[in-house]
């Protein structure tokens, strides 16, 4: 029972249309967009921001914001890397993911405690912890680019398939980490749609007081959210360094801005209560195409930042405009009804 009118008010179709238009444009100019290796390259670049965006979207839906996930991911993966190197671990990569996720959980729990229990503002808390974790990494652990233990290096070479581009003679490998992304997406979908916990996240974003009165454990839900973001960040950190096969502590820092932008571009309401996984992934895809493929039509890399900025402003502007327009329409119809 989804009417057409309701669909047109969502932003997913617009983002999808933008992606299609952009791909067609790049394809027409370069003939390279729909080649196997380009698509695999895109998927590869999309994994890390997409993993981040899932947690980020959930936090924004709950009415909060988290800017600390790149710092959590970096510190978690770096400490894990050092522990495994120091202990000459040569077993399965699962342990690396487990340690990093565990460290992420602890760091996320600190956010959750400060936000859920002490009711501090989310932006301030996560800015603070972000600085704290980055500082610890560079200060206490004097982090610098380092090798990865064999478990992670092996994991980085696991590829699902190789796509070749016959005209250019280029090949690209599809990394196995994409399976992690798929698993996380399925899990997040089930969580958000079919559990009371997931509906509680939307409920808090809609009206926190009402959620409390209805009997949602608001503090618990917030604690869960920031822990979830921490765990996800820990996992993303390992996925990232395994694909790079070396542990660069600063490789993920600064990603929070593009990830948040992608999430908002995908139709997640900045004030909370609304947001979908589909929209989020579309938003990430659009941002990835912008930063990866513009070079195919001869636009120099530094120009992609201009395009990215323009897309963010236009994209969020359209969303904001729609919200205002709906509100105005509603006010008018109420006046007419009275």
């Amino acid at each position, binding site marked *: *029972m*989804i009417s057409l009118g309701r669909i047109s008010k969502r932003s997913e179709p617009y983002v999808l249309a933008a992606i299609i238009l952009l791909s067609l444009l790049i394809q027409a100019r370069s003939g390279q967009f729909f080649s196997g290796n380009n698509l695999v390259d895109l998927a590869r670049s999309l994994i890390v921001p997409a993993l981040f965006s899932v947690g980020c979207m959930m936090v924004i839906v709950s009415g909060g914001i988290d800017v600390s996930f790149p710092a959590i991911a970096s510190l978690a993966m770096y400490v894990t890397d050092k522990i495994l190197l120091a202990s000459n671990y040569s077993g399965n990569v699962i342990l690396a993911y487990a340690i990093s996720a565990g460290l992420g959980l602890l760091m996320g729990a600190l956010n959750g405690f400060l936000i859920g229990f002490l009711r501090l503002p989310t932006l301030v808390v996560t800015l603070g912890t972000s600085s704290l974790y980055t500082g610890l990494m560079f200060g206490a652990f004097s982090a610098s680019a380092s090798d990865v233990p064999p478990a992670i290096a092996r994991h980085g070479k696991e590829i699902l398939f190789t796509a070749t581009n016959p005209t250019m003679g280029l090949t690209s490998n599809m990394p196995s980490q994409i399976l992690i992304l798929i698993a996380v997406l399925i899990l997040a979908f089930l969580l958000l*749609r*079919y*559990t*009371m*916990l*997931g*509906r509680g996240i*939307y*409920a808090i*974003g*809609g*009206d926190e*007081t*009402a*959620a409390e*009165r*209805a*009997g*949602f454990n608001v503090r618990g839900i917030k604690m869960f959210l920031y822990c979830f973001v921490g765990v996800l960040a820990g996992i993303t950190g390992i996925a990232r360094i395994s694909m790079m096969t070396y542990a660069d502590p600063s490789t993920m820092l600064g990603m929070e801005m593009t990830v948040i932008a992608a999430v908002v571009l995908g139709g997640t*309401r900045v004030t*909370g*209560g*609304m947001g979908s996984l589909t929209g989020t992934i579309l938003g990430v895809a659009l941002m990835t195409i912008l930063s990866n493929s513009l070079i195919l039509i001869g636009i120099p890399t530094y120009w992609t930042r201009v395009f990215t900025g323009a897309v963010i402003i236009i994209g969020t502007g359209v969303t904001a405009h729609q919200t205002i327009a*709906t509100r105005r329409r*509603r006010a008018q119809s*109420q006046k007419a*009804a*009275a």
Partner: protein
Amino acid sequence: MAASVLRVKGITKSFGGVQALRGVSLDIALGEIHCLAGENGSGKSTLIKIISGVHEPDAGEIEIDGRRFSHLNPKEAIGLGIQVIYQDFSVFPNLTVMENLALNSELMDKRKLVNYKRARAIAANAVSQIGFDVDLDERVENLTVADRQLIAICRALLQEAKLIIMDEPTSALTKKEVKALFAVIKRLQARGLSILFVSHKLDEVFEISERYTILRSGENVASGSTVELDRKTFVFHMTGRQFEDEFYTPSAIRREPILSVRGLSLGGAYADISFDLAAGEILGITGLLGSGRTELVETLFGIFQPEAGTISIRGKEVRIKSVKDAIRKGIGYVPSDRLTEGLFQPQTVERNLSITVLDRLSDHFGFLRRGAIAAMTRRWIGDLSIATKSPALPVRTLSGGNQQKVVLARWLANDLSILMLNGPTMGVDIGSKYDIHVLMRKLAGKGLAIIIVSDDLPEVLACASRILVMRDGVFVQELDPTVTTESKLSELSTGIA
């Protein structure tokens, strides 16, 4: 007497050093519509919060269905069939009607997973109970205020409510919606539910409730059967003050009109409006919502441009091009929604008072003269008896009546000759309402020309020296308030005898 569903005895509660309730009692019979009345700060909300388990009383006893408790927690209260419909309805604007209805009961059943089929069945059952026709898949933020309230009521019914407490349920509703709500309340009563209706609007208390309890400063001052209550005693119990019968006898109406309107028309809003207004006069314009009354005064304030007709000020024909132009011509307008349109809520009383006249209160270099601002603030707080502990407090800490006075003072600080007020006492409690009426009459006596637009008929009768009744965009009749009754006014504005 019928059995009680709720009996509260000797409830005492203090917050910090402030005694909110002193030995309050309340008794609600099965299947009764009971009104809890009292001015802001009388302790109504505290009492509700104690009954619903949000606050724990310091002393006293709560008896529900014959079981006695010294205090409750929210879950126990809901389990005992007590449901509160808050003023903000506690709905989730971002979720669908279906989820809003189903979530609470699913939570009460301690379910961990969502089953949309079951949720739909729950929601459909809930809306059918009061015959509420609504699209279950619509987001609640797209519904009207009245519909959101019905959602909250349906949700309460799902929890097997025995007593539904409605906290100021009509404050955001139009007259028509209030009627519809009352019909729903009667329907609930017919099903054996008890309703505690919290309000300070006396018309509603008389219309809907069978018995009443009035609180003042945290104490019971009166209770009994509504039929034995009259307006004057009700007001006395609410405020603790005796009010004179109000009416305005203009002392100094000038002969020359200050404002003359001839054949003014605006498509779709009003047509062929003509009237004169002289200094010292209070002109009451009344009519239903949508009768064109608001558009008319907003045209005089430069918000709309008329399509035909003329406006003259002091005999000279003028065109009011914009709001700024209206203010320059000495016209002031207080809109009906002072909360969103009139005041900077988080800012101090002083800043709110001085904002429109800052250029007069600053020196040659544009620096503010602190002393002059403080003096002006003191003068207005004194003149209009604005009740605030300090001019440095944010305006939102003031009661509705006092906020309205701040809006008035701001206009009066400009040199006005015509002041228009739209619903000047909407949502203001009785005591402040009386004070505002006195103030308006005083201002008119000093030579201001005032127009009040109001559908509060007793108010129009009490303040105006002349009444114009508007219906469907035209003036239907001019009346003299001293010889007019409320029923005559209502008949004219609705067109129903």
